[in-house]
């Protein structure tokens, strides 16, 4: 006795369709459905809590403003997750640029801030984000998107502009290092 597992996809198709046609309820529902997932992804890439909040808000505001021109054939969840990744990259690039202008140094340190009451996460999450921060960003993206978002390797490969085998390698190396870091702490 089985029932197809695509009700989530069906719901998203309805939401996309209604969102394009001006439904605030649809946008509100999309927001409720994905805000926590996107915050988790944004934290894991990693960001500090303030950055994560800003990134996710930017993604949704941009999404809302683009309603009139919105066209999406694929997965809404993957689209929003990819938007977070791109937004994080943009912010990191801007930050590097600013940092270079300030002192000629390299990439900005994306260290964690103190836990923010505006976002809720526990100590294990904080430690995990710290461990993720030690991975190269390409590996970090693959690990977070594959595990947290459930994105397929081929879709991550498209997002990163590399082959699936490269993504697979990044995932494997990333997980090995993350596991070693985690085991070292626990």
């Amino acid at each position: 006795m089985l029932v197809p597992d695509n009700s989530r996809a069906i719901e998203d198709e309805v939401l996309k369709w209604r969102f394009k046609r001006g439904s605030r309820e649809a946008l509100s529902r999309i927001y409720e459905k994905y805000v926590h997932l996107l915050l988790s992804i944004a934290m894991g890439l990693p960001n500090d809590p303030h950055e994560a909040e800003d990134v996710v808000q930017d993604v949704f505001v941009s999404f809302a403003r683009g309603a009139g021109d919105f066209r999406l054939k694929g997965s809404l969840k993957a689209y929003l997750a990819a938007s977070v990744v791109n937004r994080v990259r943009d912010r990191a690039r801007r930050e590097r640029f600013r940092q270079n202008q300030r002192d000629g140094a390299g990439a900005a340190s994306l260290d964690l801030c103190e836990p923010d009451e505006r976002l809720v996460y526990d100590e294990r999450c904080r430690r995990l984000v710290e461990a993720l921060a030690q991975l190269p960003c390409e590996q970090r993206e693959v690990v977070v998107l594959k595990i947290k978002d459930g994105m397929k390797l081929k879709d991550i490969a498209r997002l990163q502009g590399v082959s699936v085998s490269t993504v697979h390698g990044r995932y494997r190396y990333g997980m090995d290092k993350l596991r070693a870091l985690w085991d070292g702490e626990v």
Partner: protein
Amino acid sequence: MSTKDRFEDIVRKDLEVHAGDGTCDCMRRIILAAYGSTERTKIPTFARRMVMDKRVVKFALAAVIVAAVVLGLFEFLSPVGSSGVVWAEVGKKVQASQGVIFRAVSRDTPDPHGSEFDYRIDHYTATQSRLDKYKGDKIITSIYGDCNTKTTVLVDHIHKSFVKMADQQTMPDTLRMDPNSMVQRFLSCKHKELGEQTIDGVLCEGIETTDPAFHGGKNPPESLMARIWVSVETGYPVRIEGDYGRDNGQRRFTFVQDQFQWAVDLSSDSFEPNIPAGYLDISP
């Protein structure tokens, strides 16, 4: 579970961030305001759409709630084996039942959209399903599932629209939300007997589980309680109920399945999507 899988589970579970209520509301206001400004710039072309949209608003809410109920149920189902002595017969009977019809009621708390339907009547065979959502005695939405063709069709009978989705590769492994799989899971999980109780006028025996394995999915709830009551006379389930909690109990999912009709011979016609002429196709 392998070490690799366990660590993936750790990452999946521990990398969990939520916006506080105030932050969540604030962000929503900002986002909706951004959307509102977009809407205002599009009034000339939007006016005609609004006529359609009023129809669709209710449809989408209905679809959202149906999907939420279905998705909620998906969360606690997975394939398992059978065990037990008396109850093992229940597992066999249920497995042998060709078709089953029952009523399903479920609630998510909090549910910001409110519960827009009262109950569902679900039909299942081994490969097909139909979930009809009711408000009062009026059917408002139907979801048809076919594992052979891997398609799902959602039909909104109020707003005369339908969506068809196909090609779900993961379907066979993840679609076990029916009473049959629930019974098998009850039997294989650690449980305690509840003794006899009369349920809907039927003398039943029940078991209760709080075993996290009952969930079986990748994202189990923090707390879980599920009960099944089986008729002493027929050996078929009469009522299945559950209560799952997340976020220290702030989010809850409760469900009840009752009014079972077991061993029903459901023809394939029962699962043929009923899409009257003139319904709008909003499939992707």
